């Protein structure tokens, strides 16, 4: 008798970390229940499933919780072997992808969050840093695909693609709220930008990204909160 494969995702609509998991489940075609959490009033389920960090995303598979977006992505890839494989078979290629995934996660994305939460000189400094990291990322993308990047479709999305969409997918909303461009499609990031545009055309991605105005609202809220508490 087939075991029931019950999957639920606890998330917050504006969280890029949640977006990663949401995209992964959709790309694999895994049916799941989505539970929107109010982060100012966390559900007792969330606290039970993630007692250490009390954060989203939490993936619950047959009652067992998994946390940390990158850990969840690898878990999904290993557990559901249908659909696109997020990590390649070859251990060296896997290492390259994991290296760049960690780079986007820590070096790029976490600095982008800082840019949102700061202004003045501190912000300027971080904007420069992100620009340098994006240059490195562009070289990294070239090194992973020395023969050129294959055309993207829903069967061949990988871990890095999921990170690219979740990090940069709402770039227009980010630009509107910050009043500055983070990705430069001409000088710094032509490959990254063209990959992003191709990903944004995918049916799954179109269905997964929240509407522009909602993202702008959430980003503005986060920025206000951060700047207010910084000046206290």
């Amino acid at each position, binding site marked *: 008798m087939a075991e029931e494969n019950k999957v639920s995702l606890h998330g917050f609509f504006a969280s890029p970390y949640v977006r990663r998991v949401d995209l992964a489940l959709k790309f694999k075609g895994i049916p799941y229940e989505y539970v929107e959490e109010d982060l100012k009033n966390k559900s007792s389920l969330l606290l039970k499933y993630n*007692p*250490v960090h009390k954060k989203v995303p939490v993936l619950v*598979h047959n009652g*067992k919780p*998994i*946390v*940390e977006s*990158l*850990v*969840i992505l*690898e*878990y999904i890839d*290993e*557990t559901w072997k249908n659909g696109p494989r997020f990590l390649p078979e070859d*251990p*060296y290629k*896997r*290492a*390259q992808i*994991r*290296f760049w995934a*960690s*780079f986007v996660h820590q070096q790029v994305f976490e600095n982008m969050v800082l840019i949102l939460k700061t202004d003045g000189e501190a912000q300027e400094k971080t904007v420069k840093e992100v620009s340098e990291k994006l240059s*490195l990322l562009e*070289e*990294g993308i070239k090194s992973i695909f020395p023969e050129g990047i294959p055309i993207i479709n829903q069967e061949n999305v990988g871990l890095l693609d999921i990170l690219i969409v979740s990090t940069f997918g709402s770039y227009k909303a980010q630009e509107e709220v910050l009043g500055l461009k983070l990705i430069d499609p001409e000088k710094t990031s032509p490959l990254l930008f063209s990959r992003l545009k191709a990903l944004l055309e995918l049916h799954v991605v179109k269905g997964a990204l929240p509407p522009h105005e909602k993202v702008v609202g959430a980003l503005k809220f986060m920025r206000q909160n951060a700047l207010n508490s910084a000046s206290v």
Partner: protein
Amino acid sequence: MEEVQLLGFWPSPYSYRVIWALKLKGVKYEYIEEDLRNKSDRLLQYNPVHKKIPVLVHGGKPIAESLVILEYIEETWPQNPLLPKDSYERALARFWIKFGADKGPIFSAFFRSTKEELDQNAIKEIAEYLKILEEQALGDKKFFGGDNIGLVDIAYGWLCHWFIGMEEMGGVKLLVPSTVPRLHAWAENFKQLPIIQENLPDYTKLLAHFKSLREKTTGYDAR
């Protein structure tokens, strides 16, 4: 036989993670000491992004970032597995490895804390962190990996030697039986394993290195 090289730096716990994994798997390798104050062309070529050690070079191809290297070693040399077979258990292991990786800042603060100027916040945070490790990650197991050590033990291995050195410098002991008896026992058991015991930097030299680092208020380039 495939050629394996490890670019490392003798006081770095990140170097040792890779050494322990290679030794546990019985992989022969050539160790190359890098001078981080005078980085070699080789290091800059193999790790242009971060310019840091450790870097594992296998068949001429470099891999950087200790945790990425550990997963590579596990996948390339499957003997003596260091991660559970079950994907859920593996996800738990990876969670705990990540939990350790995120706590860099509080340990840096503790490193700079001195007897004259104790960083109470860092001390409090580390005490909480150790408690979480004991209660939620280790529990009643001998090792994080169960009866035998795995990647989680390797990731936290630095606590049993490098952190002890930091405690001695700061004059504050936190990894103690009165507050975290099981974790303290884990540290003792881990350190007594022959493969670990035979592969640790000299403690006295390490303390001297820590002292000189603190005077310069710069960290060393490793992750």
